[in-house]
């Protein structure tokens, strides 16, 4: 049986790991290659690196980091952040990334999803969607959640699926950084309306939150950062508890 995936997310700036709390107030949490290896050894199923470098030099450092991660880590990993062209993706895949995630650039130019799926295959195209509720409606937000759009989360998710996305990484801006649990209602709706895997992101604080997002949110994978980085939830403990709750995991 296909297992539910646990995915630590590492924010990368100029080749170093940082973690955003509500996407501001960054704190340094170590060398990405060392962290990645440690996570792979401790039971993480996949890793996501989110490049938040603002400069070209910073991005070049990230490519080098991707190469070092690919050399040393024996589980799959996704790289996201600032990707806006076929060339960007090609460079990352050449350095050994397994998947890329695109966000704002897909909203600005949806054809990018088709181009990437045609050129590299859907299996490596993750579309990340940041959304929050405005008057009870889930609206897509850009630029790390700071710019609202009028685009409906569910319509956008369906559109990118049709354009060839292989997976959706949905971050609820209402939940991110709160440690109050994932946006399970919206996640369950995504999971029911789409036929590609959905990664839940934003709000992880306790083991129960992961149980809920798999059972109630029907997520295929769950992503979190600080609860893993600061050792609040050891991944093996989490997976054992998921198993005790009849959720299929790789142990």
């Amino acid at each position: 049986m296909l297992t539910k995936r646990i995915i630590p997310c590492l924010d990368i700036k100029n080749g170093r790991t940082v973690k955003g709390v509500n996407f501001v107030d960054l704190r340094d949490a170590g060398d990405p290659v060392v962290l990645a290896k440690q996570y792979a050894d401790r039971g993480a199923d996949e890793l996501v690196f989110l490049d938040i470098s603002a400069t070209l030099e910073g991005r070049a450092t990230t490519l080098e980091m991707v190469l070092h991660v690919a050399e040393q880590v024996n589980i799959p990993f996704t790289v996201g952040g600032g990707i806006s062209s076929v060339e960007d993706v090609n460079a990352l895949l050449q350095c050994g990334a397994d998947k890329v995630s695109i966000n704002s650039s897909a909203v600005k130019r949806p054809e990018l999803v088709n181009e990437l799926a045609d050129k590299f295959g859907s299996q490596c195209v993750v579309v990340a969607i940041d959304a929050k509720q405005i008057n009870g409606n889930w609206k897509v937000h850009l630029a790390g959640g700071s710019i609202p759009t009028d685009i409906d989360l569910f319509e956008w998710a369906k559109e990118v699926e049709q354009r060839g996305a292989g997976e959706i990484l949905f971050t609820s801006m209402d939940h991110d950084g709160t440690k109050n649990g994932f946006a399970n209602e919206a996640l369950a709706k995504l999971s029911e309306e789409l036929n590609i895997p959905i990664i839940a992101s934003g709000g992880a604080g306790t083991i129960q939150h992961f149980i809920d997002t798999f059972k109630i949110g029907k997520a295929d994978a769950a992503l979190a950062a600080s609860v893993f980085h600061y050792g609040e939830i050891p991944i093996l403990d989490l997976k054992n508890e998921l198993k005790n709750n009849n959720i299929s995991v790789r142990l």
Partner: protein
Amino acid sequence: MKLVIINYGAGNIKSIQFAFNRLGIDAILSNDPEEILSADKIIFPGVGEASSAMKKLQETGLDTLIPNLKQPILGICLGMQLLCNSTEEGNTKGLGVFNTNVKRFSNEVKVPQMGWNVIKNLKSDLFSGIKENEYMYLVHSYYAEHCKQTIATTDYGINYASALQHNNFFGVQFHPEKSSLAGEKILDNFLKL
């Protein structure tokens, strides 16, 4: 040991090269027939869409070279699928080494299958030291139907062949290069065949 990874422009092969590096083997990336023919072991990778991958093989004549290879050769993911008789993806005729066909998963399951699933009914030296129900990382929308050459099976809506073997030809649907220590063990087994 001369290990060649066939480089025909189909997807990310760096990960496979790095996985062998971790096992202490420097693999050569090449699409040169002479280089491939002189290899002790060959990896036939593949990520992406079947018909365009097959086109790339045809452009370089590798479509006739590969089925006639005598060394141990391991097809990974799409590489394995292209070694079958045919695939529904792009209605593509395969290389016909494995006597089975590749079909698309039904929409009763999420497609692609993405993540870790177990392999069982293991029947090959390729899996020496690998326990039944070991987890492997898979990413695919199409699967090979069972045949006499099945050496591992996996369940995803349907029970299908997640590994195949015919004489010196081996194929795995999963990505051993991304399947943690167990995956590396399988690559190591392949080197020792």
